[in-house]
């Protein structure tokens, strides 16, 4: 029997890759190896509905398509090494697993703060277990919460903590505004005001230098010399790619796995990367390889990569145009939503209000050389619907020249 396609990482991107391989007509064996004990589950609710208690943990599991009922799941199993020349991955039980094709889908893990102080009481949010632990901590009466990092996850967790009735919620970030990296100043300012109106405090333009307490955290020391009392600390300071297992194969692993414009890794036709871990050039924009940690990416990358890999396994070329997804993300915070289409970060120097105003429902456009490259809506369903109306326009635009 031919060696299976091995999918390293059994979360959303891994599942979608397996499903898409089947959708292309590949009927050979597929093995998914994942170090979490669970079948793939949906992560966004971990910082929103699940943390708030509206959504039960059990409802997170993806429903795999019928076409993948015959794939082999090796859960609770970690891939520890790979030899791409010999086409073998090594598992944590010492087993060597030969592959005919390899899908890299190992995703990210939270970056941790290295400053001194106790570890107990400090949380991150990536896995089911993380969210369960954090929910338990946040639902104790009268807790004071410090969220370090005002990105997507930090802002969502802060909003959820207030909803849960935390006594104090403070968000700390060295940057002057929340989510200013992805959104730019105009919307980040609007976002700050909305959070403040709903009772969240901010310590901006300052970092964390250490944690107080002996076993359990009691406070957070800031670089401006002040301190914040804390019973619960959430570290949402970005993520690191799970690529150590690929070391020693001469790949560029500086930030995820670099791919070509067909999502192939290291010039090898039998290895593709999908999901958060893939650093791919987007032909829609400037062709610079970037990682994109948005929920739409596992599905988009899996579709393309599966066709490329399946064609190779059949001894053919897929002959697809370069990968060129239209990025999209959303974020739910309090009673409002952020919804984005396109690449707002490429147009932060020319930001215009397209509709509404920043105090209510607002739609903002981001431009490069006068051309719209991304939109972000902030507000209720009307704002989101307005953003959706620009999606077709963004899809039709020709590629930006580098």
């Amino acid at each position, binding site marked *: 029997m031919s060696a299976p396609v091995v999918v390293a990482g059994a979360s959303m991107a891994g599942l979608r890759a397996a499903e898409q391989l089947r959708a292309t007509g590949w009927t050979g064996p597929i093995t998914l190896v994942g170090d979490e004990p669970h079948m793939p589950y949906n992560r966004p609710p971990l910082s929103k509905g699940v943390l708030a208690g509206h*959504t039960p943990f059990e409802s997170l599991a*993806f*429903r795999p398509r019928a076409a993948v009922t015959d794939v082999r799941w090796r859960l609770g199993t970690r891939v520890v090494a790979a030899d791409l020349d010999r086409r073998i991955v090594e598992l944590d039980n010492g087993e060597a697993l030969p592959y005919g094709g390899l899908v890299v889908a190992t995703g990210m893990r939270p970056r941790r703060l290295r400053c001194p102080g106790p570890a107990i009481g400090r949380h991150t949010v990536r896995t089911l277990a993380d969210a369960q632990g954090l929910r338990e901590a946040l639902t104790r009466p009268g807790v004071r919460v410090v969220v370090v990092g005002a990105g997507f996850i930090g802002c969502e967790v802060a909003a959820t903590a207030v909803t849960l009735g935390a006594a104090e919620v403070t968000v700390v970030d060295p940057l002057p505004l929340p989510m200013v990296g992805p959104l730019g100043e105009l919307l980040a300012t609007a976002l700050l005001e909305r959070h403040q109106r709903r009772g969240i405090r901010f310590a901006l333009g300052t970092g964390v230098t250490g944690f107080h307490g002996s076993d359990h955290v009691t406070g957070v020391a800031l670089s401006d010399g002040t301190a914040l009392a804390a019973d619960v600390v959430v570290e949402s300071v970005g993520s690191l790619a799970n690529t150590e297992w690929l070391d020693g194969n001469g790949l560029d692993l500086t930030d995820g796995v670099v791919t070509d414009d067909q999502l192939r890794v290291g010039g090898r036709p039998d290895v593709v990367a999908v999901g958060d871990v893939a650093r791919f050039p987007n032909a829609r924009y400037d062709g610079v390889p970037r990682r994109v940690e948005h*929920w739409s990416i596992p*599905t988009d990358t899996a579709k393309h990569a599966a066709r490329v890999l399946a064609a190779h396994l059949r001894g053919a070329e897929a002959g697809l145009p370069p990968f060129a997804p239209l990025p*999209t993300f959303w974020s739910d915070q309090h009673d409002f939503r952020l919804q984005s289409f396109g690449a707002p970060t490429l147009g932060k120097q020319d930001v215009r209000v397209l509709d509404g105003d920043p105090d209510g429902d607002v739609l903002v456009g981001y431009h490069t050389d006068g051309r719209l490259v991304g939109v972000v809506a902030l507000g209720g369903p009307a704002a*989101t*619907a307005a953003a*959706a109306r620009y999606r077709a326009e963004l899809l039709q635009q020709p590629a930006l020249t580098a």
Partner: protein
Amino acid sequence: MKVVVDMNKCQDHGQCVFAAPDVFRLDDSGHLAYVADPGEELRDEIEEAADVCPLQAIRIED
């Protein structure tokens, strides 16, 4: 084919509308409306819609 959307889960993201505009739409107030018994020829579209629903609220019953 039968399509079921768990309306307790659905948060009106509208991603399904992009994937399968023949089956799903957002009404004037921004809420989801859909065809519950679409034709078999729409299966690919609907599977795609089920994939891209952020709340994983769409179920296809054969």
